[in-house]
């Protein structure tokens, strides 16, 4: 049997790199629901993950990754019931995911990965998404037709941007949504969740508040059971290249960072949980 594969999609600055590094740390120390599979020896080249982790060990943020560096990073995983999974880290920099939107195309290599993937992980950093929530009021309140073209917002609302991107990815992966999508299951990680400052509300509601159109697109097109929305703070706090955070140095990066489960409530230190959820869905 071929092992299920998942792909991870995240734009630039979505916190992908730190999540990868922290995840790798957790997997190495076997502190979560998933661990690295050692039956085939050490996994392939993981130098890029080591690099991230060593930055974190000294309490600093990892540097922005160049596009090519993530070629073929893949993590062989195993869960407590000895089920085996492969996690394909994208050889897709965030910039390239952005290009999907601008060029309206996906290269063949990536198309193949999308088609073969049994599960998708989508990383969205809500606080860096530009929306225009007052557009409706503007239409309502001001009845003057202005003649100036100055200062008009030229970029798309993040809602439309993500919906279009998802539509393109789904189309390219040959997934129709005439009927609600059953496969691939989708995990949405709202990254840098510490920026939101609300850990009581379930993450899915935060998504509906911040990106209502995206939430609505996902709710109407995926089966309820096949989507989960998590809050993710890979570091638990903001680091910079020179921050030298003592929490990280003294207690180790694996003690930092948390996820907020879909139902909200209590933060959990096990960063592998969202992937575990995806694997559970894929094995059913």
């Amino acid at each position, binding site marked *: 049997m071929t092992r299920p594969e998942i792909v991870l999609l995240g734009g630039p600055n979505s916190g992908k790199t730190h999540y990868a590094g922290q995840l790798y740390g957790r997997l190495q120390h076997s502190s979560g629901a998933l661990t690295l599979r050692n039956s085939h020896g050490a996994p392939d080249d993981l130098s890029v993950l080591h690099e991230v982790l060593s930055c974190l060990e000294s309490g600093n943020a990892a540097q922005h990754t160049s596009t090519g560096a993530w070629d073929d990073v893949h993590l062989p995983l195993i869960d407590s019931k000895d089920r085996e999974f492969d996690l394909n880290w994208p050889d897709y920099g965030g910039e390239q995911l952005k290009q999907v939107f601008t060029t309206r195309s996906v290269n063949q290599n990536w198309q193949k990965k999308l088609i073969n993937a049994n599960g998708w992980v989508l990383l969205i950093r809500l606080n860096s998404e530009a929306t225009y*929530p007052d557009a409706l009021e503007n239409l*309502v309140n001001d009845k003057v*037709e202005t003649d100036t073209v100055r200062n008009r917002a030229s970029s798309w609302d993040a809602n*439309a941007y993500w919906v279009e991107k998802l539509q393109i990815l789904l189309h390219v992966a040959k997934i129709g*949504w005439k009927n609600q999508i059953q496969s691939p299951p989708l995990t949405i990680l709202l990254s840098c969740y510490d920026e939101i400052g609300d850990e009581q509300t379930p993450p899915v509601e935060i998504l509906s508040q911040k990106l209502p159109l995206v939430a609505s697109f996902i709710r109407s*097109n995926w089966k309820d059971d096949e989507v989960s929305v998590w809050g993710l703070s890979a570091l638990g706090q903001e680091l910079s290249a020179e921050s030298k955070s003592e929490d990280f140095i003294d207690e180790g990066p694996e003690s930092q960072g948390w996820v907020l489960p879909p139902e909200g409530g209590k933060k959990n230190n096990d960063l592998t949980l969202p992937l575990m959820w995806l694997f559970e869905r894929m094995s059913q």
Partner: protein
Amino acid sequence: MDKPCSRADCYHHEGETCADGHAVVSKCAHYNQVAVEPEASPHRDDDAARVPWSGSTLGLSDLMTLTSRTRKILIGVLGSHDAGKTTLLLGNYLLCLRGKQLAGASFAGSWTLGAWESLAAWTRFNDASPQPGFPPHTPRSTERNPGLLHLALRRPDNSLRDVLLTDAPGEWFSKWAINQNAQDAEGARWTVEQSDAFIILADCQRLSGDLRGEARRELRQLIERLAPFVENRPVTSVWAKADITSLDKLKPGIRNTIQQTLTKLIPHAVEVTTSVQDPSNFSDALATVLDASWQPRRAKPIFEPILSHQPYAAYRGSHDET
């Protein structure tokens, strides 16, 4: 390689998928018929997977590829120039952006996000003192087909509908109202022929202004022109811009003649009032036509007329020749 395909309805050279569905366009027979010298394009990966929509308004050839998946509902939005057609459409998109439901259905995608976004740009500002305006006038162009805006909507019973809204210049309909066969009313004729439902906009502001007599004539002409074509398709008449002049403030003579024309000629038409002050009523107009056309109407049952009360007469016999 950006040479246009020999197939007229293929927009591969504009960055969309091959109309014949070839992933690698050089394998397409239509494409290979073109003898144009290919030019190197540094930006486009020839083998990259593309999508068949561009994000701008849909034209007629797009309809074939994109709307075959489910029942489509084409809504003709009719009204004279500046009656508020585009504002009505935009209002509905902005409601979707808020996560609001339209006609009990939630947003499930759109092939024309680019077009929606460029309309919405008129209400969005980056600077501190915003002075937004209504969407600009849709100019009449040489292109005969109206631009179609698309929204996919899904109801809780999982039924998906592709809703297409015409975003056409008002001049088309004014021309058509005056002369049914007018050269430049081709788009209006297409809209009227193909639509599954209609929204007619009455401009309250204009109906109460100095030109109210003319405005009334135009609107009546439009209703009278449309009436014979409507048959049993749902029609909603919208009193737009009611925030500027409310419906009660219209001169009774004007209001009554229009309402009477409507009741007489299109008795099943529903009236809705919209004003920009209460944005939720933008969706009311759309909801009334969507509700009426969400499910296809059943065919009328055939009744056998009773011609005589003799049971024997009900026997039609066998028409087999053998």
